[in-house]
């Protein structure tokens, strides 16, 4: 790893050493280290929950580090707000788009630093022109005057990129900017990134896609469980080595998939359509089968799952459980029919984070616990304990708030909540997002165990290894359409990726 001696060269644009950060009980960062130089594109890789986003949020001034060293161009830095980091020349593209839905695309890009005309009045025409030019530079067309409301994840991501570029910063950090983009858009982004690098800016690039990392970056830093693992020049490393460093063990035993015998169809979805989100989606999941739903972020997988479970409504099509039609837009009915749904956003959808472990696990079953319509805490505690135990939830007591637990434990609570309903179908969206490697393996073991007991499982995941490692069958979603149905043996990263970007590639 490169230690820059003072006389040899200008100090690195960004230096983070042994940075630590925890959120209540959750330790997001233990000792993270990252050194990024001007004129270099530096990849930061690590599994979900490794702490990448947290680290860059510290640079951005969203979070304050608990400990560690943070230098910007050699100067000690410690930002209390993103305004300070902006002023210091740091531009960040956050993982999740942060737009103002009511405001126009242009205003979203220039908010707080709008172009001023005569008398310090905002010059809208000039801003719209600038916005169009930015988009032109990225080679996309978005009406600068339209509101951000209703933009697709991809479009939202592009606006974030335009926003960051327009900042003309010396340090540009991109947290999974390509996750929602098609090949063409990615190429355009890279062209821009390379030009910025050649202008002598430092760029930090976070991605789960190795091909991109090797294509774009010159250096890579690997993180695991909030700790610095290693920094390598791209030229001197390989995918295998990186994966090894990320996971800290062979990928194989991360996915303990035991083949279970497949039974009759449990879930049958046919012709499901919701305008603007997904179209004519038909598939089925059989007892004992794990079906993986792969695709780019924003492809519409979660929407499909939500519609099947009845959280969202759909316009056409039907959902059947064991041959019986499930009424649309009625989660309670879906639950009665034997469905369970572990949603993608744990903090917002999976858990009531401000409620206790008991309240959360009992969430679905409590109706059945009541005697003469009366329900007491102790009834719930008694009913909940075995499930908490089965999932080995780590908590000092059952009245702990869910928000005080680690991502992994939270996920266990959510799964416990649903297993308590003894479902016949488990829909699980991003089962291991933001979960440490150990828990990850546990969750995977649990899934294949459940399948072994004859439960039908529909698993949505943005992580190819996970899908390939766990699924008996892989369905690929692109632009809200099913573009492939691959059996386990013929599902390869290439085949899936190809299908996942198909619609767009065909188009261009």
């Amino acid at each position, binding site marked *: 790893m490169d230690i820059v001696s003072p006389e040899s060269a200008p100090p690195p644009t960004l230096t983070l050493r042994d940075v630590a950060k925890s959120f209540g009980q959750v330790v997001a960062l233990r000792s993270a280290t990252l050194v990024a130089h001007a004129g270099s594109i530096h990849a930061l890789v690590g599994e979900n929950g490794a702490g990448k986003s947290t680290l860059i949020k510290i640079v951005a001034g969203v979070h304050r580090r608990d400990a560690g060293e943070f230098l910007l161009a050699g100067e000690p830095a410690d930002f209390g707000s993103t305004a300070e980091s902006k002023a210091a020349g740091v531009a960040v593209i956050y993982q999740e788009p*942060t737009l103002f839905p009511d405001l126009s695309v242009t205003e979203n890009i220039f908010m707080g630093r709008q172009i001023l005309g005569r008398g310090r009045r905002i010059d809208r025409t000039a801003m719209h022109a600038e916005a169009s030019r930015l988009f032109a530079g990225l080679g996309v067309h978005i009406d600068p005057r339209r509101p951000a409301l209703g933009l697709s994840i991809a479009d939202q991501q592009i606006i974030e990129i335009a926003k960051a570029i327009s900042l003309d910063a010396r340090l540009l950090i991109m947290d999974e900017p390509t996750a929602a983009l098609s090949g063409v858009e990615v190429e355009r982004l890279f062209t821009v990134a390379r030009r910025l690098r050649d202008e002598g800016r430092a760029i930090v690039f976070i991605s789960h896609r190795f091909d991109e990392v090797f294509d774009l970056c010159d250096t890579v830093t690997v993180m695991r469980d909030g700790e610095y693992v290693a920094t390598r020049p791209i030229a001197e490393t390989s995918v295998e080595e990186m994966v090894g460093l990320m996971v800290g063990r062979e990928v194989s035993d991360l996915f303990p998939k035991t083949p279970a015998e497949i039974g009759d169809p449990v879930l049958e979805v046919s012709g499901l359509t919701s305008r603007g989100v997904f179209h004519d989606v038909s598939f089925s999941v059989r007892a004992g089968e794990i079906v993986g739903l792969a695709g780019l972020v924003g492809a519409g997988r979660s929407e499909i799952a939500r519609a099947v479970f009845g959280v969202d409504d759909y316009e056409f099509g039907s959902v059947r459980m064991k041959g019986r039609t499930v009424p649309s837009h009625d989660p309670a009915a879906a639950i009665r029919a034997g469905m369970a749904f572990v949603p993608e956003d744990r903090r917002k959808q999976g858990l009531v984070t401000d409620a206790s472990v008991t309240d959360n696990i009992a969430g679905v079953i409590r109706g059945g616990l009541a005697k003469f319509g009366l329900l007491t805490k102790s009834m719930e505690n008694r009913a909940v304990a075995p499930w908490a135990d089965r999932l080995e939830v780590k908590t000092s007591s059952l009245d702990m708030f869910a928000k005080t637990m680690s991502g992994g434990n939270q996920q266990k609570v959510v799964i416990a909540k649903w297993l308590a309903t003894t479902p016949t179908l488990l829909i699980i969206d991003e089962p291991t997002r933001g979960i440490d490697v150990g828990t990850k393996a546990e969750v995977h073991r649990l899934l294949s165990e459940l399948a072994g007991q004859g439960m039908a499982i529909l698993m949505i995941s943005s992580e190819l290894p996970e899908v390939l490692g766990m699924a008996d069958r892989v369905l690929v979603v692109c632009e809200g359409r099913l573009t492939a149905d691959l059996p386990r043996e013929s599902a390869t990263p290439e085949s899936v990726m190809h299908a996942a970007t198909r619609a767009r590639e065909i188009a261009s």
Partner: protein
Amino acid sequence: MTPAPTQEPTVSVPDAQPGIQPAVTSETQLLVEPSSLSPRRRIVQGLLRSREFSILVVLLLVVAAATIKNPSFLLSSSGWRDLLLTPSMLIVLAVGQAAVIITRNVDLSVGSVLGLTAYLTGRLFIDHPGLPIVAVFAAGILVGGLLGLVNGLLVALARVPALVITLGTLYIYRGIVLSWAGSSRINASDLPPDFLSLGTAQVLTIPVLFIVALAVLGAVGYYLYTARSGREFYAIGSDPDAAVLYGLNVRRRVLSAFVLSGALAGLAGVVFAARYGSVSSDAGTGIELQAVAAVVIGGVAIFGGSGTVWGAALGAVLLVTINRALPMLGIPDFWQQALVGALILSAIVLDRVLAARQSRRLVEARDLP
């Protein structure tokens, strides 16, 4: 107010590479095309579609109906004057309230602030005869601003919901007036004639108080539309968390919104004294709900982020004018409040319908051709 120069990095735009002209390649068709309308037509269309326009139409209809039924409603000199004069006070309140609501807050204390400054106005004239009228206006605005500052500090710093805080200060401020005024009151004879005449004075048939209201409206509207900090009001209301991520100074903006609302309520208090000539300790009780109603009718989303003070002002005029028109139309005045309620409800339902339609349009625009 404008942000420190350090916070405005210059905007540099990478000039389009020869390789990637913004030609409409097929994959960009997925995205919404820039509107092909000529600027003028876009503006005109926007105007016609705007909420403000529809309120204006309703307002004109009401006035027309009342005038047909009884020409003096508009055509007599005092009819014309009252048409403009009566809403003036509520316009001022609504403008302040709109600014607060746009930031996803609400100020319920304006009625009490109005009462306090209205009484203060009278007291000033009684205790300091010969005090210039301008000074009294200044005092009203200043005191109102201070009371607003208290609200703002509590909301912005303690991060407590505005609804609760301003409900509390509603009681506190009112209590202060009550104990200060006791059962004493301000009579017209306590107020200097030229101040009272302000209440009805006209310039080219336009009442002075209405001009004051317009001035306030113009200033605030201009600020919210053309100033950076003004736009931040909308950003904050649209998504407070994103605003923080973005590095906007949320606290300062929210604070200034409340100060503005307070100051305008203070101004309204002085206007109250000038217009009604006599002030008792319960002046302005309950007017806060009218102000919120006007804002809601005016198309400002109650959860912030969208709407304009122009709309709020029109809402205020509509509210007041309907009240005045109903008796003309032979509807006994007991039913007025009911109609106002129906009006508010239909306004927000309408908003919801339109919003739903728009977002459906935008989502479907994402579909492949």
